[in-house]
């Protein structure tokens, strides 16, 4: 008569909390996360000191590797997933990332153009 059979399953998950798994599965998740994180870290340190790749690509590669490793940490250690039980956690994370990108990107952008947009007074006088 009523469809209460599915009711207990669709609750929210706390951040860091996993769905019900056996201990072995959970340990395996951490092992996979650790292996991926160590691999990405080793790649970062290798890329930073190598002459094998085109030098101007190194900073971009380091930033991409860092973002990838942060993703690995979020998924395997903090258990932030895209599942419906994780919506609140993902939304909070998305808002946090928005603020982080506004702060870092905005600061770098403004400060990089500061000399062009706000020259010292004697330079302005010379322009006139």
């Amino acid at each position, binding site marked *: 008569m009523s*469809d209460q059979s599915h009711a207990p399953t669709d609750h929210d998950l706390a951040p860091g*909390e996993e769905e019900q798994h056996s201990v072995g599965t959970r340990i395996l998740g951490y092992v996979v996360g650790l292996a991926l994180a160590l691999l990405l870290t080793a790649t970062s340190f290798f890329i930073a000191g190598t002459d094998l790749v085109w030098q101007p690509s190194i900073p971009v590669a380091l930033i991409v590797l860092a973002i990838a490793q942060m993703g690995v940490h979020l998924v395997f250690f903090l258990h932030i997933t895209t599942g419906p039980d994780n919506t609140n956690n993902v939304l909070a994370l998305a*808002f946090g990332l928005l603020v982080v990108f506004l702060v870092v990107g905005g600061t770098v952008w403004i400060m990089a153009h500061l000399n062009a947009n706000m020259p010292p007074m004697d330079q302005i006088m010379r322009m006139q």
Partner: protein
Amino acid sequence: MAMTATAGHAHADPHHIGVVIEHPGPASKRIVTAYGFWIFLLSDIVMFSCFFAAYAVLSGQTAGGPKGSEIFEQRNVAIETVCLLLSSFTCGMASIAADVRNRFWFYLGMTVTCVLGLIFLVIEFREFADLVARGYGPSRSAFLTAFFSLVGCHGLHVSAGVLWLLTMMAQVFAKGFRADVLRRIMCFALFWHALDIVWVGVFSVVYLLGSAA
């Protein structure tokens, strides 16, 4: 029968849109606590992003002092990184042990996490002390000010984490795996993993980009 079903669902479907949503009631305290702590961690990461922005702006302002590539030692940073990564793993093991109420593995995981965190702190402290002894303290240049405040702020967080870790071990020893103690262990694990994420940014942006440039 249809009448009673409608009456029974009237509360769950107040606008009669035909979609019945089962309300399981307020979330459990475990979820509310961890979610609140997640919000705190995100605001902490926003605070770190301000330090990162300051460092990105000031990293070239050496005022005749040393550049990053002249004072960073990659070997120490690699050891620090491996320590933090392994401690994140052992912290995960300790939280699994707490969930299955296994005291031995919980104490073992937390002890290894604590030792790895202390090794990280000792290496970082020796690096700072060495820089200050060479006259490259935080007052030498804007670059060094930004460097010391960013890396030092992360180091302070790790120190607080180690104190919290010891407190959790003491609480499990004195009170056992009570529900409130388990919630605190969960928040500690979140804190420790989040510190690891910040360190990924630190070693990539400060040390590796600094020595590459």
